[in-house]
């Protein structure tokens, strides 16, 4: 019974964890400019993330070490500096974007300009991390994040054409604006496969004291949670395709994205959108800043746990405190949250090889995983994800220049 409880909780957590500022913004942009056509990219991103989370969760449950621990231990400090710096820079940008997302939600709700909200949001996040334990962060925000189901309701109310959507789940080439199409595709992948997601998930497996007994929970959580979460992102894309595309509206401000739900659901839709933006971005803020503090603490061997009082892991708790304030700065200075989101999603996509390729080595290490090493289907999937990540690395900058405008 307890296991079923854990299972349900895990799936809910993943749904809440998937949808955040990046996936909302990039899905809305994709739907507005290319209709259903980019749905296949969301499917690809969702399946890739599900695979990566299943593997890092399995690695943690069997080896009793997090992915960050093993990046340092198995590849040495000289190599570890590379993912450390890449993930750190990328995550700081994404963290700032999430704080921007929460701030925009509050601006929509109150009329007070978003930049005034950045510091209060950082302080509220800090207070939750300071006083709360891992379960509160993981489950509290995820449960509230279920309000994101309003995206699915919005899409259904608008009666999407299912056969067209079905066809869009297979890759296709654009008929116009090729650079823009691939730019948004890369942004969607960056939003779907953020390294913080699997670093947080892997540390969470240790916080929740997972063992080999939890491997089935891990598999179901990673696959179903992400498929449901990805489904909501596809719903956002479908809604944007039906609301924005016919009116030829290009999304370049968050306020426009609010129309996504206001059009099918009226005033309640607007309220649901603001709530979804606030809760999912706030949840992601907590997860990202924890993932960054975990990465530092695990990489350098400090004491760490969100379940310990801050005085017991001073460097860990100082890290999340400083990082929250640091990430709030661009928003305080008035940087446009949507531009920041777009840049950080592309940079995220470019950073993927340094965390995806080492996983291939670790998942085939019998000393760590014993009989739970990857089989050939998982290895094949990982090779495909690694190849995609290399393409993203090479294509990100040119596409930012050609299609980012």
């Amino acid at each position, binding site marked *: 019974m307890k296991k079923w409880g854990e299972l349900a909780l895990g799936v809910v957590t993943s749904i809440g964890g998937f949808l955040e500022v990046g996936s909302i913004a990039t899905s809305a942009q994709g739907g507005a400019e290319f209709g259903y056509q980019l749905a296949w990219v969301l499917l690809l991103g969702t399946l890739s993330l599900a695979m990566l989370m299943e593997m890092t969760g399995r690695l943690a449950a069997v080896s009793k070490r997090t992915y960050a621990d093993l990046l340092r231990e198995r590849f040495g400090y000289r190599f570890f500096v590379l993912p450390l710096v890449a993930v750190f820079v990328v995550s700081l940008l994404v963290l700032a974007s999430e704080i921007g997302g929460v701030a925009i939600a509050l601006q929509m709700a109150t009329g007070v300009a978003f930049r005034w909200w950045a510091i209060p949001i950082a302080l509220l996040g800090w207070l939750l991390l300071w006083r709360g*334990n891992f379960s509160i962060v993981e489950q509290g925000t995820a449960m509230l994040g279920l309000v994101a189901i309003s995206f699915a309701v919005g899409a259904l109310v608008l009666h999407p054409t299912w056969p067209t959507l079905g066809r869009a789940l297979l890759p296709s080439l654009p008929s116009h604006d090729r650079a823009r199409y691939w730019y948004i595709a890369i942004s969607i992948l960056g939003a779907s496969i953020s390294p913080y997601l699997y670093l947080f998930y892997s540390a969470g497996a240790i916080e929740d004291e997972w063992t080999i007994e939890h491997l089935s929970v891990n598999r179901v959580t990673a696959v179903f949670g992400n498929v449901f979460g990805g489904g909501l992102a596809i719903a956002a894309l479908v809604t944007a395709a039906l609301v924005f595309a016919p009116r030829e509206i290009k999304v370049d401000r968050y306020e426009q994205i609010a129309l996504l739900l206001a059009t099918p659901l009226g005033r309640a839709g607007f309220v649901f959108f603001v709530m979804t933006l606030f809760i999912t971005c706030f949840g992601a803020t907590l997860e990202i800043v924890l993932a960054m503090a975990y990465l530092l603490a695990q990489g350098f061997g400090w004491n760490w746990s969100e379940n310990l009082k801050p005085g017991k892991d001073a460097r860990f708790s100082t890290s999340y405190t400083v990082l929250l304030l640091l990430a709030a700065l661009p928003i305080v200075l008035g940087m446009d949250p949507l531009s920041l989101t777009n840049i950080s999603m592309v940079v995220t996509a470019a950073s993927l090889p340094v965390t995806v390729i080492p996983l291939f080595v670790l998942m085939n290490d019998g000393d760590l995983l014993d009989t739970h090493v990857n089989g050939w289907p998982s290895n094949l999937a990982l090779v495909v994800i690694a190849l995609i990540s290399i393409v993203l690395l090479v294509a990100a900058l040119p596409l930012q220049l050609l299609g980012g405008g």
Partner: protein
Amino acid sequence: MGAVQLSHEVIDTQLVDRHQEKIGRIDELLIELEDGKPPRVATIVIGGAARARRVGRWMLACHRAVHALFGQREEHASHVPFGAVRCIADTIEIDVDGDTLDSMHLEHWLATRVICPIPGASGERK
């Protein structure tokens, strides 16, 4: 009994003290060379400079620049005799009290000066 690969199973491994508290990772191992005696692994080094040196001179220069920025002249590194190792497994346990290690200077300074004065910081578990 069996052989242990230093580069694979010892360097960069998580260190815990005799109270099972995490106290850093093995950043460097020193081999002692004495006339007439075979070389032996003598010392575990825990510290930022040792780590930085492994990456390259540029990283060491960055490390020193950061220290200078915060007005720190001396490096807080720990040199622990390899003989203090009690167990080599997923973590390496050494028979020392982590609180006495110089490499834990920042942890203690932050805990006493910055973190613990804030309400809700003290105690064991949340």
